[in-house]
């Protein structure tokens, strides 16, 4: 995908650009707000990654709001050292699609970018989600695997739904916390891991192949092939 990175800090910029290139993406880097705004509005991008505090008089938030005012729906991920809940809310309110605080792991950034792309790709209404022989009925909120019903609590259903919507892609613990539980702070314990292993018990035990996989050091992924 074509990525525009607007970031003035040397180390972060190199870290992000190298990582994205290694993952097979095309990257354009801009180091100040004015040029960033120019490129963001005049060219087509699959995703824009921008820092909030930029030199050159135009900051990250005004770039996002300008893009949105112009009617562009390009997914935007905001990177910032401003970590408070208020700042995050401000970032998202100005039109950002996701907000990641520094310091961050590259795997987290990549997972979030891919989730953003998928979100913008599939907007159509679906009634059921499928992966291998696992079926989620989104209207009745019933789950069955190989024709056998599986009883899930409402929150477990949302967890599974999120995983299946992102099938084949890695999702991180914080992505799950934010999307499934709506918590924008890190409880910093293994609660998510425990939730996942309980879900795994329900959907994978006694079935083959296993669908829910742990991606070490990053997060989880649901996929039919290992």
């Amino acid at each position, binding site marked *: 995908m074509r990525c525009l990175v607007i970031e003035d800090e040397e180390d972060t910029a190199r870290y992000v650009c190298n990582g994205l290139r290694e993952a097979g993406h095309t990257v354009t880097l801009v180091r100040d707000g004015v040029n960033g705004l120019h490129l963001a509005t005049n060219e087509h991008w699959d995703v824009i990654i921008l820092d909030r505090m930029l030199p050159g008089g135009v900051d990250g938030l005004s770039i996002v709001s300008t893009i949105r005012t112009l009617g562009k729906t390009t997914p935007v991920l905001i990177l910032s050292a401003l970590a408070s*809940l208020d700042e995050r809310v401000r970032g998202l309110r100005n039109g950002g699609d996701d907000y990641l605080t520094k*310091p961050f792991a590259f795997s987290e950034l990549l997972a979030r970018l891919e989730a953003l792309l998928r979100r913008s790709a599939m907007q159509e209404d679906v009634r059921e989600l499928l992966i291998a022989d696992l079926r989620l009925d989104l209207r009745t909120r019933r789950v069955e695997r190989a024709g056998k019903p599986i009883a899930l*609590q409402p929150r477990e259903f949302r967890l599974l739904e999120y995983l299946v919507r992102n099938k084949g892609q890695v999702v991180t613990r914080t992505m799950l916390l934010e999307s499934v539980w709506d918590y924008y702070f*890190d*409880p910093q*314990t293994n*609660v998510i891991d*425990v939730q996942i292993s*309980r879900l795994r018990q329900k959907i994978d035990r006694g079935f083959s192949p296993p669908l829910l996989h742990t991606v070490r050091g990053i997060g989880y992924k649901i996929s039919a092939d290992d």
Partner: protein
Amino acid sequence: MWRNVAFRLALGYGALAIGSMSLISAVFYVGTVGVLARSIDAKLLSVSDRLARHYESRGGDELGQEIRQLLADGIDQDTEVYLLVAPDGRDIAGNIAGWQKPKAPLDQLTDAKVIRNGRPSLSRLLPRLLPDGSVLVVGRDMQDQREIEQLVWHALLGGGAVALLLAIGGALLFRRQLERRVGAIRRTAHEIGAGDLSRRIPTSGVEDEFARLNSDINHMLDRIEQLMGGVRHVSNAIAHDLRTPLARIRSRLEEALGPGKSSTQLVATAQFTIQQVDDLIQMLEKLLQIAEAESGAQRQSFAPVGLASVMTGAVELYDAAAEADDITLLSDVIGRPITFGDSQLLTNAVMNLIDNALKYAGSGATVRVRATEETDTVSLFVEDDGPGIPQDERSHVIDRFYRLDRSRSRPGNGLGLSIVSAIATLHRGQLNLSDAAPGLIARIVLPRCDPVELTRGETAPVAAPA
């Protein structure tokens, strides 16, 4: 002296007192001496009129006779003045000498110096020109009168001087008194400014404005000292808690640089280092959360929050963890507890309490979470039946970096309860810890938000997480 507020105040007050006294004296003077002088003038006029009528009916000789008789009758002998001067300037009768016919028109009251009965006298005189050209002078010796006036005047002046002295003396005394009280505050402020934060303004037994001011200032100083102590403690603790993992990271990195390391070993070192750094970032994250809560800035985004949904959300996240540790996690709602706050922060607080309860109560325990509504407050309870916290440690566990587990063998950074306490304080509530015998009851008490008031407002959605 003029740069002294107390002195200026007292002196100003003194001046005011003297001013009002002068006014009263003036009224008194006019009311006594003035009235006396006017009554004398009236009497002189009536005597002069009577003698003039006597002259008209009886003639000049009879008038001389009358005057001589008046002078001899023994009445008013000390003060009376009479003189009858013939048209040719010769004195016919009278008891004064040396009177000069004034150039000014006659028939007017004048003060003049004359010789009366052979002695100089200051007299009030009323000369009158009679039809035959002779002049009748009726008067009164004013010596006594003047003496009385002098007396009153001197008394007033003396009194004024004493009053002025009293005012200045009072000002000085007042100044000293005020200086003593203000001086105590200033000295203490100086000492604190010089670095001794433990100084306090000495309090006297008197319950006056200064005593109240002093006690307010002392309270403020207590709070500042406490906060400073907290900051010092936290800096020490951060320094200490940073050193340990940094030392570990350093030694592992140094080891990795040694000869003959396989790539697997290097990868393991990198993974270990990342883990350690992540832990440090988490610790700083929590400190930032506390600082953010303590700053109070988040109050701006407060909205009504239902504690039931806060609790349910947290319990739903932890139910799997409780199940895995064979802990029974129960939740219960009493009433309709609603407070004014931030649901994310309150959830964070409850989650910290549940996390602690699960961690310390251990396998097989029961953890009860309750959201309750009281008269003026609402509460979130997290109660476990684990070992609890010894009474003397309960007040310390809220301190940052304080850990019951001195060896620090369990995971954690000793910030969990500090965050809960900071979030409770941000919501104008507090965190209470008490004994569940056995176990611990952690209770977050918050102000109750009246649902009736909510329904009256335009926008009052009860924020529900999830």
